[in-house]
């Protein structure tokens, strides 16, 4: 049971709003100590896993070109474009984006969108511009709309990607079950991602529709 103390450190750290990097490091050291590992082994394990997972941080290479385009008015242009489309509402825009994200992820094209490359420069400013037309003018409202843009990207990705046969999670499930003598084809697994994908579209779509209604009611 003692090895779970690291989880306690994390919960406590996040509740107390201590810098998460510190919290995570302390949690790792505490967990290692509780498991009877010596400190050097834990530091080496942290270092190895950090090095093996560098690909997670590769996404930042898009920032120079995104920043450069912002310098020349990319966000402003995205806003103008949405403002000129009469039928564009924030709900319709985000729902369209989510369905696009689900369909492309279901075809294995996870990487064609994301927070750094599409949400910050394009989707979020467009969503804010649409919401402004609908009467959302305060900074607090704009922050909520930007958060919703990021949420919509995540939800579209998560509940689309497992329909694709060769996505990491489907391969993980297949490999795991194989170890227990259960042989399944990837297709037999991925078809069962479809009901949840449809439910996600309906639930999130309903929330986006209500967002439009709320803005219209004011």
């Amino acid at each position, binding site marked *: 049971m003692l090895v779970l103390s690291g989880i306690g450190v994390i919960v406590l750290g996040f509740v107390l709003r201590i810098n998460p990097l510190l919290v995570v490091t302390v949690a790792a050291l505490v967990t290692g100590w509780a498991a009877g590992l010596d400190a050097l082994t834990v530091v080496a394990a942290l270092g190895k896993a950090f090095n093996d997972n560098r690909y997670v941080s590769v996404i930042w290479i898009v920032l120079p070109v*995104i920043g450069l385009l912002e310098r020349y008015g990319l966000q402003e242009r995205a806003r103008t474009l949405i403002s000129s489309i009469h039928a564009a509402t924030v709900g319709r825009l985000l729902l369209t984006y989510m369905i696009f994200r689900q369909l492309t992820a279901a075809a294995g094209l996870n990487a064609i969108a994301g927070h750094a490359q599409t949400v910050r420069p394009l989707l979020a400013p467009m969503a804010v511009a649409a919401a402004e037309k609908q009467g959302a003018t305060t900074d607090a409202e704009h922050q909520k709309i930007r958060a919703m843009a990021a949420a919509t990207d995540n939800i579209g990705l998560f509940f689309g990607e497992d329909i694709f046969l060769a996505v990491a999670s489907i391969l993980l499930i297949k490999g795991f079950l194989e170890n227990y003598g259960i042989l399944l084809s990837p297709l037999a697994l991925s078809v069962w991602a479809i009901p949840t994908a449809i439910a996600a579209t309906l639930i999130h779509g309903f*929330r986006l529709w209500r967002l439009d209604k709320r803005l219209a009611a004011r």
Partner: protein
Amino acid sequence: MIGLSFIYSFGGIVFAAIALLSAHDRANRKRWGNAAFWGLLALSFLGGNALGDLGNGVLVLVLVALAGFGAVGRSHPATTDAPTRVASAAKFGNRLFVPALAIPVTALAGTLLFKHVDIGGLPLVDPKQTTLVSLALGVLIALALASVMLRPPKLAALQEGRRLLDAVGWAAVLPQMLAALGGVFALAGVGEVVGQGVSAIVPDGNLFAAVAAYTLGMALFTMVMGNAFAAFPVMTAAVALPLLVHGYGGNPAIIAAIGMLSGFCGTLCTPMAANFNIVPATLLELDDRNGVIKAQVATALPLLVINTLLIYGLAFR
């Protein structure tokens, strides 16, 4: 073969350039902290494999100390003001979208085409890394297009990149750190302990309770680990296989596939899934670090209920 080493070199050069620019930024009181932070990340990207496990571990501890004790601060490189941007947007019009869309279009083309390109039988691009290689290539193409079209001052792209990267700040390495924590958890056997605990508390003889224990367990343990992939083997071995599949004769494909998606509902609700939840909050400059999570909970919870009902209704016919 173009693979991870190319991608890491590219990333390392970008981080190194940002570290140098940080060191030269006299307007930033914390410029040496910033330079050290991005410089260490550059070292990790360029020479991580040569540092050894312990060397990398020490590098991690220094990165954490710099960020955790406030040595890293947001910089404000000179950029254009709002009126200039509006004027520039009017001048360039929709052409501004061309370099921005070059990144996703290249990712699309690369994912579809790279697997068919080989030189003398050897694939040009490492088949496991087509996504990242396409991303890097897309960035280079977008930069080339933007430079020709916009004629920016020298270093403008790197300074603008530094502006955005400093806005993200230390959170930029949080996803990688959480992955590292997962490595330590695995070494310490955290998963086994959690699995035993969960299987001990599942009530006997009630199918719905057993299904709910699996889907809720997936969501909760994913929230702790920040990653459904880490929760899946633990919960499935502890609850799904012994109880749902062998005990009640459920269909393993349905249970496992929807079980994983129940974990994804947990991913939407946790700061531990930093790259999906915390990083966008910093990228979008939200005051509330948990703003994205708050926007997601009202979708995640009903979806978790539906996942539970789907397994209950479909897997045991």
